[in-house]
């Protein structure tokens, strides 16, 4: 399948409202009622199906709280890894990973690291993905495509980290808990933490 953002005619960093608007305009244009009794109605139906699929993919991706970086963004793109970009955008992540892994260590440049990060985000391995995209940003600090991708991951992980800090256990609370348990046990005649 083609890049869903390209099908809707919006950039990958379009807002949800812009995406919805683009979808509605296209749906109106290719709606079956518009092509009723038209000899090309079957072609319009295929186009409508493509548009619906593209909208579903984007909506699902965004509802997962993260917008994957789009390797088709024009900034920083070179011809060298075009094949990998096409594989990623067509959902063929394993194949894209295989192509990337075939590149020797010495040739792994900023774009290699960025695309490796893209493959890992598609797999859901956000931690590892950040590592590679950070390297890409370090090797090519002026590249907005890489920077935007890193920011996108970090914005989606910030909320999770805050939740962890609020609900998780701190070292102090663990010690306090153990002390309380020890006291309780001693009151009952046994000993949890033997101090002698």
């Amino acid at each position, binding site marked *: 399948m083609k890049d869903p953002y390209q099908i809707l005619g919006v950039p990958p960093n379009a807002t949800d409202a812009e995406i919805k608007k683009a979808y509605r305009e296209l749906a109106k*244009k*290719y709606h079956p009622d*518009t*092509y009723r009794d*038209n*000899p*090309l109605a079957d*072609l*319009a139906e295929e*186009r409508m199906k493509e548009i619906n699929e593209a909208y579903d993919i984007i909506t699902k991706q965004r509802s997962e709280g993260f917008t994957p970086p789009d390797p088709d963004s024009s900034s920083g793109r070179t011809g060298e890894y075009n094949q990998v970009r096409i594989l990623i955008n067509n959902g063929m992540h394993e194949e894209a990973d295989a192509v990337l892994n075939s590149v020797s260590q010495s040739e792994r440049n900023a774009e290699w690291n960025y695309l490796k990060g893209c493959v890992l985000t598609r797999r859901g391995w956000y931690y590892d993905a950040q590592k590679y995209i950070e390297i890409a940003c370090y090797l090519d600090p002026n590249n907005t495509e890489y920077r935007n991708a890193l920011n996108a991951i970090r914005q989606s992980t910030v909320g999770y980290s805050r939740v962890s800090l609020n609900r998780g256990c701190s070292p102090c609370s663990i010690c306090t808990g153990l002390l309380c348990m020890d006291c309780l046990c001693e009151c009952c005649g046994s000993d949890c933490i033997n101090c002698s």
Partner: protein
Amino acid sequence: MKEYSLYKGMYCGICRSMGKCTGCLSPLTLNYDYVFLALVRTAIAGEKLVIKKIWCPLHPFRLRHALYPQQTSGYVLSALQVSAYSSAILGYRKLKDDIRDRRGLERLLSYIIFPIYSISRCKALKNQPEYISLDNNVAELLDELNELENSNAKPIDKPADVFGKLLATVFSFGFEGISARITDEIGFHIGRFIYIADALDDLDEDIHSGSYNPLIGESFSKLTAMSALMCELDMTRKAIELIESDETGYIAIIRNMLDYGLPATAEKIAGKAESAINGGSEPT
């Protein structure tokens, strides 16, 4: 290149193609209708054209930009060349009809310029025998149209359909599959638009001269005329929207023509026909 420049560049490109393919005098017969044909065919084929600066004898003081096919002259179905050859074939057939149908000074003028069209067509068919089938199809459909017109056929939809089929043949020439279906549909509805618009445009003159016009004697209103024309443009637009092409510049020009240029032409022509009817033109 901005849209208007692309549009003009396409015209100059077809002119150059004609000079090369159908003789040095043939560009004198070119009109802007063939630019639409070239734009549609270029967009749907995804054909890459290159811009070249040229010197034109009709505009000697400034170099012009013309579009050229990227491939070599062996590429028989370049949109520019199809437009050039179609212009030669259609122009020749139309002029033959004019010589037969018109009288007086118009007929004399047609006779005078006929050799240019005849030579253009001969060169076209000699250079590219692939176009003989197109020439035969056009001749067949024009004969069918002439029969309808000679039998005073009404309503206008009958002859408009035949002319639509004629242009559909030209637009879809050489294409297959989905491209053929889309260009066939575009050509058909643009053909119907042109036929109805021509009938409206000639209404006043035909009433006076007693020539065939399928609108004479039919109930007429400007609203009906405009609706008929806009329906054809709407159907053309729907077909254009199904073109999947990276050549978005050409699609933008086509949309511009369908959204602004052609509706404005329709409005003008329908108004003229309304004046002819309301002015109480009397037949001779």
